[in-house]
């Protein structure tokens, strides 16, 4: 395959064409240099490999719990904070945080399906580590894993 258009320098207006070309190329190079500088800054400020990221740290909380859950099936979920707040902005922020923690719990505990419900036999409680976990009615604590993480089971 070869270029179909043969080189046809703009000889009729050569110097202007050359200036235009140089300006256009300079623009592209300038844009690239600005990005390269940003890439170097980004690479230089990357955390060390030994520093765990936020999600890996959050996932570690669920490691022991994962071993005690059934390998398949549906498990209930109770989370914090309450997706409400005194103002719409706080309510939105709480909802988002509540949802994010639920998603991360699901990500950590896959392939078990987590449902925000107390219908299933087992329910995972993912509470504020500072707060006393409250047991839902009709359930008993199977194990308190600490750090706000509790596994409940429906009482016989």
């Amino acid at each position, binding site marked *: 395959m070869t270029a179909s258009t043969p080189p046809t320098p703009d000889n009729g207006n050569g110097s202007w064409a050359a200036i235009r070309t140089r300006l256009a*190329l300079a623009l592209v190079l300038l844009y690239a240099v600005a990005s390269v500088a940003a890439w170097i800054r980004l690479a230089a400020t990357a955390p060390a490999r030994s520093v765990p990221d936020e999600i890996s740290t959050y996932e570690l909380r669920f490691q022991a719990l994962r071993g005690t859950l059934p390998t398949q099936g549906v498990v209930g979920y109770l989370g914090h904070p309450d997706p409400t707040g005194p103002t719409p902005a706080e309510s939105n922020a709480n909802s988002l945080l509540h949802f994010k923690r639920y998603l991360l719990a699901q990500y950590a505990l896959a392939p078990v399906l987590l449902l925000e419900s107390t219908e299933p036999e087992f329910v995972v409680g993912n509470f504020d580590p500072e707060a006393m976990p409250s047991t839902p009615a009709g359930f008993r604590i199977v194990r308190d894993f600490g750090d706000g993480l509790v596994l409940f089971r429906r009482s016989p």
Partner: protein
Amino acid sequence: MTVGLCLSLLVSAAAGVGLLRLAWPRTGAAWRWPLGTALGAAFGVGLSSVLLYLWMLAFGPTQGFPLAESGLLGVLMIAALVRGRTAPQPQPAPSHRERRGRPFYLLAGTAALALVAAGAAFLGSLRRQPHGEWDAWMNWDLRARMIFRGGEGWRTAFSGMIPWSHPDYPLMVQSLVVRSWLYAGRETLCGPALVAAAFTFGTVALLVAALAALRNTSQGLLAGLVLLSTPFFIIHGTSLYGDVPIGFFFLATVVCLALDGRYGGATRRFAVLAGAAAGLAMWTKNEGLMFVPAMCAGILVSGTFSGWPAARRRLVAFGMGLFPMLLVAASFKLRLAPRNDLLATLGIERTIGWITDPRRYFLTLREYVAHLATFGNNGLGSATWLLLAYFLAMGIGRREVDRVWTRMTAVALALMLAGHYVVFVAMAYDLPRLLNSSLDRLLLQLWPSALFLLFMAVRTPEEVGSPLRQASPS
């Protein structure tokens, strides 16, 4: 583990390149290794994804897959080699050296520097968030985990009980992540990272190689430089979403159509390959479902320039390449995927209310203009304005613009933008939030193809009267 991961990529790429070389026409288009490798790797990863899907339907995500896949692709490669010995070889590219001046080497050096810096930034960004961004652990990698960990119960990954995780999304990215873990022998964060890196830098390689083959090397380097310098492209590559992968297959489709535009008189194989690449896009994200009719519409519109018989032949060849992937995608949608959440929540009254609300049209249009105008902003300026200035300075190469494929692709890309506009207006529940969170990603999907189209159409520096070519000694 590292060996297994590397092998997962090598097996796909080698098989893809081997099969593409086998399918490459024996006359007309010369075989070039850079383009053949980049394009072949695209088909190779797509083939691997489909093979794993079919394997899972039969046996589940079992550890036997890597051996079976390597064996199957090995047999195919041997068959290709045997046939290659008896069949005529593709024409090698004519060897001719372009005369290059110092500015060319400055451009090549900057492109190499940008590649190294972007690679370092990519790794740095991955180290910062090895699980990717929100959608990666809510959707793509969650699904991969559910399949890999699920064993015999892998179909739970597509449960309608977690509709927020988009279980109807096609399987390209998730299956490639699962495949990397099967090759590695265990779940590792390096798997999704490798898949993301392959698609991100594979897109750059394909863009550069295709332009180098169809225009010239400096044009390829310029386009590659702009793509590598587009901040959102590199950063979003590390988000581990499906937008960069689908952009890769959009680009592969457009490149195959450009090859068809150049050599379609002698062979229909490139149009068939374009159909296959479009099918792989459809297997990557639901946006591919819009891309296929947009491309078909582009081909039909091209009939007004090339004549209907030519358009019909191209459309039939495109459909032949697309058909196998249509079957695969239909099997997924019918057997595994629950209903799309966007469609499932649609109500006729609400939709009529939305499409008759002029404020939604205005808001969507305003955001389109704003996002297009600022796309690729790296602090110095947006890539859109940069390319507009570049286009005005260099002018268009009439021979390329007059080609049918250029118009076909321009129509398809415009239809994609229009299609997304309609989806936003008619289907988005929280329109401002959705525009804010997804419009840049949709533009990014089209970005490599748009760059390819632009740098195919615009005159090369050498054509304008360039400092890139060494002045002839008098």
